[in-house]
């Protein structure tokens, strides 16, 4: 067991965690932040993407102790109160999701993209987002959504 000190969506958190506790288990089970989803469990699908110090990580592979001293952003921390983030607004307006299970990961990956590159080209969006699988949309509307958010941001 170790003590981890971090912020999650801006809120300070101090917890005892097992050395092998995965970040996704820490978020979903210990902190009850169930917006982060697990699917492939091997870091391929991107559904579990969260931001650690602004960078996208697969929380199904990262250990909770890796987040010690860091700042974690999950989907629950993307909107400011009732005010949606431009990416959330764009995914709504452009049909960037259907079933919604990959959407938290998509939005967080896209948020990191727009912070690194506020005006990405279509090709840059595709390169950045290739680690986030979606089975519903066929991706066209995800690209549209991110491009629209970049225009609005």
């Amino acid at each position, binding site marked *: 067991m170790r003590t981890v000190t971090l912020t999650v969506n801006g809120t300070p958190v101090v917890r005892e965690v097992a050395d092998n506790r995965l970040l996704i288990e820490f978020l979903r089970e210990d902190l009850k*932040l169930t*917006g982060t989803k697990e699917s492939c469990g091997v870091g391929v699908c991107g559904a579990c993407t969260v931001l650690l110090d602004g960078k996208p990580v697969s929380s199904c592979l990262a250990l909770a102790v890796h987040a010690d001293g860091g700042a974690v952003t999950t*989907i629950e921390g993307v909107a400011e109160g009732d005010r949606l983030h431009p990416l959330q607004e764009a995914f709504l307006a452009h049909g960037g999701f259907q079933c919604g299970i990959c959407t938290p990961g998509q939005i967080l990956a896209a948020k990191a993209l727009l912070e690194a590159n506020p005006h990405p080209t279509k090709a840059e969006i595709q390169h950045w987002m290739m680690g986030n699988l979606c089975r519903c949309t066929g991706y066209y509307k995800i690209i549209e959504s991110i491009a629209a958010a970049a225009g609005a941001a």
Partner: protein
Amino acid sequence: MATASLTGKAVGQPAQRVDGVAKVTGRTRYAGDVDVPGLIFGRCLRSPHPSARIVSIDVRQAKALPGVHAVLTGTDVPDVCYGRLCRDIPILAKGVVRFVGEKVAAVAADSVEIAEAALELIDVTYEELPAVFDAEEAMRPTAPVLHPEKVEIGPGAVAGHHAELRMYPPIPNVISHLTLRHGDAAGALAGAHRVFEHSFTVPSVHQGYIEPHTCVVSVGADGIVDVWVANKGPHIARAHMAVAIGVPEDRLRFNPVYIGGDFGGKGSLMDTILCYYLALAARRPVKMAMTSFEELTAGNPRHSASITLRTGLDRDAKIVGIDARIVFNAGAYAAFIPGPTLHGYSELAGTYRVPNCTIEVLRVYTNTVPRGHMRSPGAPQVAFAVESHIDMIAHELRLDPLEFRRRNAIVEGDLTPLGDRRRHMRCRETIDAGASAFGWDKPKAPGVGRGVSIYEHPSGAFGRSTVLLTMDKDGRITILLGAPDQGTGFHTMAAQLVAEHFGLSMSEVEVVQGDTLSTDFESGAGGQRLTLTAGQAIADAAGKMKEALTALAAERLNCAPSDVRVGPDGSFSAFGTNIDLKSLVGWAASRGKAPFSAEGQNTATQPDVTGFVAHFAEVEVDRETGQVRLRRMVTAHDVGTVINPILHQGQIEGGLVQALGQAMSEQIVLKEGAVITAHLGDYKLPTIMDIPELETVLLPGGVGPAPFETAAIGEMSNVAVPAAITNAVFDAVGVRLLELPISGEKVLDCLNEKAGVA
């Protein structure tokens, strides 16, 4: 009946999804997010053998592990088999295992880790038995028989017209043998000018939903069993569970959860019954979530198929008859589909004028992962074969493949190959609209090839839909329904339809999915049925509510109900006096007459309108590596009135890209019966990098069978895509692929073979 007239204020609008804000903020509750007090976690031990006798199972050490609450084997659960039609799958293996991945024992423990540690302590001794993996081999007299005992069959094993169905005929391992005849195919082929015969193979692919099968079961002290499961038809699932566990349906409450992708794969109970027995044994609520590994190795993927087509032509290159045979490999259990076989067989003679047609369909057990339904079950396998075959015939006749299709395309007044009469047959128009947008006749560079494929399918029509509309004193309507939204946007469509019927805005309509105790029977999502059947149930309820409102208006306006006219904005008028909906309901409320409700229901009837799609693909093939690059596609659709253009386009794009996966990269690879493409690194779903430039053409003037002339779209775009691409590969480099998926390796082998021969 489509009687209501369309204002377009709600239907046709790109309305925001009613589940949208929750989904983009992470608040949507899926089965995996359900937490109940005392929840523990179930995992199961699976067979490493494709066919074996279980000699002994020792669970003593597993039971002794701290944190373990229950350990079950086949002898601890009732001796029943269950299934959606064929009841052939045990809750846990009893005495024998029939595929690699079959559930042999299960543990419920305080955590997933403890449950998995306990599984490792279970000692199973197997005696391996002969196995069979190939469906043709499984039908031979010497093949090992998977299910020698009689399989119980639930209600619903019905053959359609022109069909002869035999369940469990005296052919080894055959589940169902269906023969359909219209006209005299044998005679037509015997008298044909030329006969062409080709055979095709389509491997199994996975539905690829990102959310693995997940369920939670809690047995209450009051005798109510609460279930939260990612299942697209909760009422049907409840009925099957009730039969299997011997608990009446009114004690089973399937609670609503959103579904993280379905694509046909989430219509079975999967682990739910096992989860129930774990919960009973542990006296605690239990959650079971399959891992992605389990999904890929032991889920219920699409049936693999082998198909042979024989087509006879007359001197004018017109089809005189088709004789088709398809063999579906069902794997070890038939339990996962609701019918005797896969409905895609009905497309085996394609979208053509075929006066004589015979179709033989066999569904066969093998010692491999059980197969289930996936988006338009059976149809992609069939469409790949038919649309490749037609292309091959055209090329052998030195005819333009597009012209050959046009010449034989079904037109208004024709019967379908199986003898159905439908109206609004816009097959040629769909081909032409797509070809024009695509530039079929435009010059192309060397190494570039173009291909086309076509497909026809009517809106799904089966089962029963129900809704309950309740209008409050402010004129707002709540829609209570029992069908989940697996992502298609059905709940949003329902809200738009209700808003359209009453002239309300979307903010005045709320959709509530009820549990199975609070809602009437609803067949749920599947087979693109909700647009038609739920659309009609909504229209039924709206009609009844309008009748009640009209009676109120008559009372308010002091006239007879027959004098009241209902305007498109939902207002009521008689003899020059007008009252809007809200004022009327407010008036009724003041007299204690609101809120009031109306139930709607619809039992599906086969529509006489159909839909067409034509796909066009342009590829570039690298002759050095065989690599195929999909440069662009055009997809043309003959559709009905579009309810929501964003949702509609989402179905087209999502289905098309799903089909690209089947065409280009996806395959459940089996080795000695075991799935070896066992994680998403090996099983290649399309990524955002893999999509082509895409143009969609929607034919104007659409007609549909559902209210406001709407029609289903969910299973149109994912069916015929692979053949458009393989046809384009042939056009580019003369290589004909008779098996999916297209790989650079296969193309290169064929190129080398051709070079060697030349």
